[in-house]
């Protein structure tokens, strides 16, 4: 009986393997591990829009049809691991785009690493995501750079000498960028008067803001995700804090303005992309196509995911292969790639590229400046 079972199993797996190769012959499958639901849903849903646009603009590679399998990581670290496993084992993808957030990318990274599959995060900026990893890449800049840009803006443009920093200790992104900002701000001669923490999903920040109010800093640095960022801004204004607020790239979601309302007016932040700061031909085409298809302005997540898709397909075309051992060196040698988010080079698995500063003005994100690395 047991032998029969083994035999059936062998036969079945042989059939499956055959079916797998037959399928692989005419399509190239790419996995996308995105936060389609949960706290980071706006980022994930926009990223998917960017991905769809990229797919319709470039539906084939090496003469084969590209197929994208999207797995929802529910904005959760454990689910990010599950979704990545599902993409690798069930969908048998050639490479993975995503996850977006640093925490989820740090969770999914080792899975891809163990399977020996290239993973490109569009949006994870924490330096640890790619550190000592062979198969993990990103098409965005890293937080030591973003924190520096934020500190420069605070010190030189906002003329701030003192700052308060609020950190979401449940997000690797926030912990990282806050400490890089702090370091850069101190180097410039600024002073961080108080550093308070909270944790993702918190809704009441009155205690932290009360402590900040007592110190009366020149600015408040809040590199928060949009939900917390909007609630912090509202409660800060209600408590009578009038200081300018400065954030990071996670501030860029329409919901920040919808939830924050008048309280987020004037909030500035560093980010990756804005349609008014486009520097490349590809970027102009992307903005036009995105607006035509979705009737809204593209954000950073959609643009970066678009770039991740094209960088991956470029590597496939250059090496005429979809195998990881060919793709990894090709991705490592990406230089002066004309992305929609700017011309970028991948150095040590991280992209070196300009940052954009945006500010909320009249209920919209307004372009302020582009900062070169």
């Amino acid at each position: 009986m047991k032998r029969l079972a083994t035999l059936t199993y062998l036969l079945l797996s042989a059939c499956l393997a055959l079916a797998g190769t037959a399928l692989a012959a005419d399509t190239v499958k790419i996995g996308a591990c995105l936060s389609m639901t949960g706290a980071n849903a706006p980022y994930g849903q926009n990223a998917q829009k960017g991905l769809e646009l990229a797919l319709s603009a470039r539906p084939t590679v090496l003469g084969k049809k590209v197929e994208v399998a999207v797995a929802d990581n529910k904005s959760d670290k454990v689910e990010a691991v599950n979704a990545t496993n599902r993409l690798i084992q069930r969908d048998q993808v050639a490479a993975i785009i995503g996850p977006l957030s640093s925490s989820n990318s740090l969770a999914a990274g080792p899975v891809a690493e163990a399977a020996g599959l290239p993973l490109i995060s569009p949006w994870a900026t924490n330096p640890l995501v790619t550190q000592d990893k062979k198969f993990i890449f990103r098409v965005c800049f890293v937080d030591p750079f973003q924190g520096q840009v934020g500190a420069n803006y605070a010190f030189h443009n906002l003329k701030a000498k003192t700052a308060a920093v609020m950190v979401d200790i449940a997000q690797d992104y926030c912990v990282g960028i806050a400490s890089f900002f702090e370091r850069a701000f101190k180097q410039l001669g600024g002073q961080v008067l108080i550093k308070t923490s909270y944790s993702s999903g918190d809704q009441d920040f009155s205690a932290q803001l009360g402590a900040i109010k007592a110190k009366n800093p020149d600015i408040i640095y809040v590199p928060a995700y949009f939900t917390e960022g909007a609630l912090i801004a509202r409660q800060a204004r209600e408590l009578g804090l009038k200081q300018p607020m400065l954030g990071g790239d996670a501030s860029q979601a329409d919901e920040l303005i919808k939830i924050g309302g008048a309280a987020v007016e004037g909030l500035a932040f560093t980010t990756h992309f804005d349609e008014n700061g486009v520097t490349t031909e590809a970027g102009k085409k992307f903005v036009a196509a995105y607006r035509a298809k979705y009737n809204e302005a593209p954000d950073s997540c959609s643009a970066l995911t678009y770039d991740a898709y094209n960088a991956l397909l470029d590597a496939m075309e250059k090496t005429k292969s979809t195998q990881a051992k060919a793709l990894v060196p090709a991705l490592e040698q990406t230089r002066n790639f004309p992305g929609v988010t700017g011309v970028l080079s991948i150095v040590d698995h991280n992209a070196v590229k300009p940052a954009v500063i945006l500010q909320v003005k009249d209920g919209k994100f307004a372009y302020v400046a582009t900062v070169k690395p």
Partner: protein
Amino acid sequence: MDALQQLINGLTLGSLYALIAIGYTMVYGILRLINFAHGDVLMVGCYLAWFASAQFGLPWWVSLAGSMALTAALGMLIDLGAYRPLRSAPRISALITAIGVSFFLENLGLVIFGGRPKAFARPEIFNELYHWGGLRVLSLSVWVPLITALILAVLLYVLYRTRLGMAMRALSRDLVTVRLMGIDTDRVVAATFAIGSALAAAGGIFWAMKYPQINPLMGIMPGLKAFVAAVLGGIGNVVGAMLGGLLLGLAEILLVAWMPELAGYRDALAFVLLIAFLIFRPQGLLGEKTT
């Protein structure tokens, strides 16, 4: 002055916890069922109110009343579909079913409403900012304790001065005997769920006015915190739930105010308090000692 402001912040948060905990504890007190779906019923209530006011432009009090009525119906429906078939099953089965209902509502919410949070408008009357000396108080923060106290008074009246309340209290002692006395226990239980769910909707809507965003998973944390508050006060005791809520809110705010570096552990504080109470005073502040 700062300490006073923090005290006010703590009372605001505490009375929101209390408002949610009252419904939680009432259902427990009568049915001995920890209704883990309470937080998710709260979420549904918020979305109903959001549809009423943001989509149909109804005034806030109409959407509050409408949402409470519909959520009450939802509560009865949940009881009918999920809990009634298990009335004579061991208590643990009903508890597990409650967790199932909770997951069902969360995921249904994700499918129907989508994962992106929605902005919840705060009505003008609750949006005024009072300046008292150096203190700044939102009018909502003044209204919520008053509304909580009012709801508590109405609930106590229903429980101790009406026939329905008498039936509820009797039922909490011994369901089988009450049924033998000729009381339609299913109707009393349905009424309990209706009231509990309507209170969840009210609590959720005021929560959403204070923290103006709603999403399908928004009920989880307030639900858990309200559970902790209910246990602190003595689960099953509605006055205790009010006290427990205020205590928890104050404890959370004061922890962060005095020790800002520990702010990230504020949820942990709530659950450490829960564990401490379960070990040293399992009957809570006002609960009766059971043997």
